[in-house]
């Protein structure tokens, strides 16, 4: 079992332990295979660490399931969807429009940054 940061989670990894949200509501069952969609869902709930099947440390796990080249694109799409729903009630305020723009930028930027880190490890 590997204790893994959600930001290093890759599609195809299998959950070794169930994940619950802030309220204790079950988000994903043990044994579920991760997809881009449910990784984004975990992030949107602010989940930072999960347990996935496998042996070894976090970095090796990341290498084994290295994501496809188009993964970044798909992830961005999912981010936008979540972001729009989240901000839907507050966009009549110019400051919140800016907050959303910044949030979108930060989410985008996290992807290439992570790639860079993977390569140096």
């Amino acid at each position, binding site marked *: 079992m590997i204790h893994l940061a959600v930001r290093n989670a890759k599609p195809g990894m299998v959950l070794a332990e169930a*994940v*619950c*949200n*802030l*309220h*204790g*509501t079950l988000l994903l069952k043990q044994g579920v295979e991760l997809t881009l969609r449910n990784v984004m869902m975990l*992030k*949107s*709930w*602010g*989940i*930072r*660490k999960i347990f996935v099947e496998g042996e070894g440390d976090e970095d090796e796990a990341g290498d084994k399931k290295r994501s496809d080249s188009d993964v970044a694109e798909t992830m961005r799409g999912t981010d936008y969807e*979540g972001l729009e*729903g*989240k*901000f839907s*009630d*507050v966009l009549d*305020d*110019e*400051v*919140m429009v*800016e*907050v*959303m723009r*910044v*949030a979108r*930028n*930060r*989410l985008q930027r996290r992807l290439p940054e992570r790639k860079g880190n993977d390569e140096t490890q």
Partner: protein
Amino acid sequence: MKPNNLTRIIGKVDDLPTLPRTFLKITELVNSPKSSAQDLARVITDDQILTARLLKLVNSSFYGFPRRVSTVRGAIVLLGFDAIRNLLLTTSIFDLFSNMNRKGKFQREQLWDHSLGCAVGAKVIGGYLKYDKIEEIFVAGLLHDIGKIVEMLFLPKEFQKIAALIEAKDILMVTAEESVLGYTHAEVGKMLAERWNLPSKLVHIIAHHHGPPHAGKFIQEAAIVHLADILCRAVDIGSGGDRKMPSLCQTAWETLQLKVSDIEPIVGEMEAEFEDIGLFVNHSL
């Protein structure tokens, strides 16, 4: 009319989490004009864990002192009384989050991250405003949602209902709380803060972080935490308990006198500092 449940919690007030005795002693010392750095050092060094934490935190990147601080006295001289008190309050709050049972583990972690993110955010915004009590505003951020912890501990059934309502309707936690309880975590938090005899500034910030104009002379502080809360939700630092953005209070925004173009650098600094202090606080305290 006081809602039933709130009365119920007040009834259990003796069971509410308490602060360690050392903290109370230190608060007393800090508030007394007669006490010296030596008095304070004596109380702290009596407690080994506290001493270790204090020195670790003082030497962390959060303060960024160029030289190593190796004595409690040195730390007090460098940071000042108020900062030390707030620092000790921080470690006590962390214990409170850790003392929950295993079932509450995920909840606790996410709420802790949200609180820590908000604390860091408040510190960064405070820096932009040249606000002079940075440690205090940091602690205020850390404590702003403490009412949610109390609800988890003392109203577990209602808390489940609130959770179910949020899931079903995708609404803000405060909206769900109003409909299930008739009051919110802000009021519950205020009650706890009063019970802990926290300074009235902190009580007001906790009580009004969703409505800063009600915070009276502490409107600026409440507005700082209000904005910090919104910014950490925006970039998903932890979880405040729902997936909606609360609206920004116009009066609060005007009070801060920030520019729209300040948002981006503030968020950038927040994320960087959160990574820094998050690593430190989560593993060492």
